[in-house]
């Protein structure tokens, strides 16, 4: 299982447009990906409602996990996405 920890860079946190972009990217990978706070229950990263309800704020750390072929590459791409201020773009 691949795992990454990343700090949310988006100034509005992980909702609105950043959440949409993240969920779309996670969905396009075709893998089972989860996102959660360290040590807490994770949610399906392809569920917009789940990701929004997580309510991850700017500067918070989240853990991404994925299973299957290409998991590392997929997570690297998502980490890169979360490390940018998506809302400012």
């Amino acid at each position, binding site marked *: 299982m691949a795992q990454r920890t990343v700090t949310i860079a988006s100034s509005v946190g992980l909702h609105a*447009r950043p*959440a949409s972009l993240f969920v779309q990217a996670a969905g396009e990978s075709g893998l089972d990906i989860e996102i959660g706070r360290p040590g807490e229950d994770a949610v*399906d990263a392809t*569920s917009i409602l*789940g990701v*929004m*309800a997580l*309510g991850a704020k700017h500067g918070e750390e989240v853990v991404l996990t994925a299973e299957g072929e290409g998991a590392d590459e997929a997570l690297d791409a998502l980490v890169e996405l979360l490390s940018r201020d998506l809302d400012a773009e």
Partner: protein
Amino acid sequence: MSNSTENPRGIGVSPGAAVGPVVQVRAHVRPPENEPAPADPVAEHARIKEVFESVARTLEERAAGADETAQQILTATALIARDKGLAKGVLKELNAGKGPTRAVTDAVGTYAAQFEALGGYFAERVTDLKDVRNRVVARLLGQEDPGVPEFHVPSVIVAHDLAPAETATLNPTLVRAIITEAGGRTSHTAILAAQMGIPAVVQLVGARDIPVGTIVAVDGDSGEVTLNPSAAYQEELIGKRERRRAALAGSSGPGRTADGYPVKLLANIGGVEDAQSAAAQDVEGVGLFRTEFVFLSRDTAPTLEEQTDIYTKVFQPFGSRRVVVRTLDAGADKPLAFADLGPEENPALGKRGLRLQALRPELLDTQLEALSKAAKATSAEVKVMAPMVATAEEAAWFARRVRENGLPSVGVMIEVPGAAMASRHVLAEVDFGSLGTNDLAQYTMAADRMEGALSDLLDPWQPAVLAVIGAACEGAKIAGKPIGVCGEAGGDPLLALVLAGLGVSSLSMAPSKVGIVRYALGLHSMAVCHGMATAALDSRTATDARDAVLAMAHEDLAALL
């Protein structure tokens, strides 16, 4: 009336008259009672998922043809329709023995409750969740999607109530008039319809039962709606519209009473497009520029550069005319994603307007700096005022910040009865006051503006509301400061005369109402306006007040009302 059947009457909120076929905005359907549980929940789930998918595709198709903001919202809503968590929730409800539409409604309800509890931005997304639910439930029942149907001939739009977004997306060239069963004098439908110059009637009982395609005549002044109007009545109504047009064509220029007392006629605007269309009309400037649109439905605070650019575009079209800017009036019922102060028990009485600005001063500082830059870049006479001021201390705090930014003229809205009663102290701190009659009526009569059923209490003709306005004008006189009106009351030609008589020196309204108000002022001397003000204040009820003033009005004006 020339028609034999009894005509329903609502409240006319946007003037003018129109005749056209009815288009009914479809209400959303509720799950039927006693819906049977599916024999095979898994197969039923597959069918429901297909419906969710078809809704997602519809939303994406609409997104493709929409502007950028709408596109983002529609794309995100499509994601909700495809959400795996939501689909699992539906399966859980089906397995618990619920019928398909009930299962969808309850699964959405679980998320909606979570988001409402989170408040702020999340609570706003509940609208999108419910939009998905309404479409899926309608399709499961073999019905068409709720909302405004597509139509191609100029029509009269009928709805229970129109959401602001629905009103704003209506194509004005295809909308002859708007009728709603709910809503009130100061509801969004009323304000937007007046802004667009479309006749509108709200609070029309039975509006939803008018069959689609029925020809109706709508009188946006009296609130009367006539089904299948006779040719004679259509002629009468159109005749009135033409008389009004002819009367107004003969009056132009600055507002003045018959004996030459100036009463400035200004426009209320809410954005760059409004500014361009208002500037092209015969108005002396802007009495209320609502700046909320710059901030609402955004996830981050707009930057100094963005704001400067927007304000410059608003000021430019007015040349050297006056533009009164109201700083951000948000909070509570109009939450900002980037300055959410959490849910409140009584939003209208909570941390809104200047109170929010005081808690988030950096928002105000950026706005004032941007206004100052835009004012320097253009030749407009820019004035800045604060919403929801209650005390002299608040007025002084705001005035200092505005003047520090090099803006020469600062004022406050008088919409809190406390500020109206203490206006001589409050206005001593600033250069001018502006009565926000919608909120002033709401707070004076303790009646929620958004509650259509309380419209009678919110009538600005209520003698108590007029007494509070009169007190504010007295205080302004003592402080030696001008006071204007920027609520919907200023656009009522009879009430405008009363307000002038009470001592108001400017009236700001939807641009479509300026013509009739200018005409009314030009027919009456200031002495008559004083007499009308006294008569209105001496009346026992709102109806008595209006009747008394109407009886004193010039016959040429009375003939147009």
